C-alpha cells in the first residue's frame, strides 16, 4: 500500500435549468432586488480599445434557437491583460471588467455584448494566441457548461498561428469559431450545439 493522495472530486455539474435567469439575471425576469444584473456592463466611457458589439444565438440539433440560455464571456483588455487578481503580467485597464453575462433576448434568444476587441495573450509556451473571447454557455438540457472561444474572422494572420486554431484536426470546422464583422464593428457569433455545423467546444 502506498500513501493516500487526499484530493477531492470537483462538485458534479447539474443543468442550469429553465430558470437560471432568476438567480443570475433577476432584473431581467422582473425580480428587482439588486441594483442591476451582474455582467450587463463591460465598458464605460474611459475604456481603452476598439469598441465592438457581439451578437449571436445558440442553436440546437434540430435547428431551433434556444431562448433559455445564459451566455458569459471573459476576455483580455486592449493590451492583452486580464482584469483579475491572477493576472501577474501587468495591470489591466481598470475601466474594463473583461466579463459579460447575457440572458439573451426573451423573444429572439439573441445574446448581446458591448465590449472591446481584446489584445493578444501568450500561451504558456510563449506562442501568441490570436485575439479571442472565452465563451461559457449554460441552459436547460446542457448538463455541464460549455466552453468555447470566439475568434475574429478579420484577423487571418494571427488566426493562422494561433495555438488552438492550428491544433484543430478538422480544419473545415475552424470557421465555427470565427465571428464575422458586418463592417460597422458588430460581430456575429452563432453557437451550434449539435449537427453538421456544430461549434468546436473546449475541454480546457
Amino acid at each position, binding site marked *: 500500500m502506498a500513501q493516500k493522495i487526499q*484530493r*477531492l*472530486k*470537483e*462538485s*458534479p*455539474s*447539474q*443543468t442550469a435549468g*429553465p*430558470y*437560471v435567469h*432568476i*438567480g*443570475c439575471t*433577476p432584473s431581467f*425576469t422582473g*425580480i428587482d*432586488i*439588486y441594483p442591476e444584473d*451582474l455582467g450587463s456592463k463591460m465598458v464605460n466611457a474611459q475604456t481603452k480599445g476598439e469598441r465592438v458589439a457581439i451578437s449571436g444565438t445558440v442553436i*440546437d*440539433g434540430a435547428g*431551433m434557437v434556444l431562448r*433559455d440560455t445564459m451566455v458569459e464571456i*471573459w476576455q483580455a483588455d486592449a493590451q492583452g491583460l486580464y482584469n*483579475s*487578481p*491572477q*493576472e501577474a503580467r501587468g495591470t489591466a485597464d481598470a475601466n474594463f471588467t473583461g*466579463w459579460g453575462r447575457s440572458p439573451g433576448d426573451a423573444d429572439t434568444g439573441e445574446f448581446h455584448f458591448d465590449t472591446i476587441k481584446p489584445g493578444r*495573450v*501568450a*500561451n*504558456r*509556451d510563449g506562442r501568441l494566441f490570436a485575439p*479571442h473571447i*472565452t465563451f*461559457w454557455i*449554460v441552459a436547460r*438540457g*446542457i*448538463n*455541464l*457548461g*460549455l*466552453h468555447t472561444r470566439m475568434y475574429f474572422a478579420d484577423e487571418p494572420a494571427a488566426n493562422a498561428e494561433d495555438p*488552438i486554431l492550428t*491544433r*484543430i484536426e478538422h480544419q473545415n*470546422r475552424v470557421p465555427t469559431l470565427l465571428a464575422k464583422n458586418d463592417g460597422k464593428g458588430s460581430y456575429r457569433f452563432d453557437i451550434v*450545439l*449539435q449537427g453538421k455545423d*456544430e*461549434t*468546436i*467546444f*473546449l*475541454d*480546457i
Partner: protein
Amino acid sequence: MIKPTGYYQRDRNWHPPAFDENYKTSVTRSPKFAPLSFASGISEETGPTFGHQILGPLDHDLIVNFAQPNELAIGPRIIVYGRVMDQDGRGVAGALVEVWQANAGGRYRHKKEGYLAPLDPNFGGCGRVITDAEGNYEFRTVQPGPYPWPNRVNDWRPAHIHFSVFGHAFAQRLITQMYFEGDPMIWQCPIVDTIPSREAIETLIAALDMDRTVPMDARAYKFDIVLRGARQTVFENRMEGL
C-alpha cells in the same frame, strides 16, 4: 516561488455526460463531436472578481429580500451554509455564490412556469453571497418544494437549490444543484440521474446539521462545494519545442 501551472483535468466521467436520453432536453442540446482538449492558459486561469461592496444587506436572506415590509416568505425556515474549496481542500475566498429556487410549494417566480402551486407574494427565489477568507458562506431561505416537470409523464424534481459559483479562474466556473438529505425523490429524478455514480450524486446532498440549527427558528443544512484545483510547483514544466 510556487506558482499555478494549469488546472487539473476535469473528470468527465464524474460529471454528467452531455447526452442522456432520459433527460429529453439534452438530446438536441448535446454536442456530438469530442471537445478539443487543451491545457488551461491565462485566459482560463484568470476570472472576474466580485467585491463584497456589490452585496446588499438582504442579498443572503431569501426569507425577506423580496418580502413586503414586516412580511416573511412562507415555508420551512432553513439556513444553508458551507465552504467553497478547491480539490486540494483550500478554501476559495471571495467566491461569488448565486442561488435560485422554487418556493415552498414548488413554484418558481418565472413567466414560463406553469405549475398550479401558487406564488408566494413575499418570495422572489434568488439570493447571493461572497465567501469569506476561509471560503465559508451562509444564507437563509425557505426549503423549496418538489414539483412536476414535463419530461416523461410523471417526473418530479426533488427539492433543490440551484448554485452558480465563481472561483478564482474562469476554468472553475460551475453551476450545480443542492439536494436535501433523506429526500426519496432524489433517486427518482432523471436530471440527478445524469450524474453517472451514486458516489458523485451524494456529494450534492446537503446534510441536516442540528448543531447549527437555530433553536425555535431555522434548521441548518451543510453544503460544501468543490471547484477545480490547480497544479502548483516550484518547477516550470514545459515540453521542449512546444
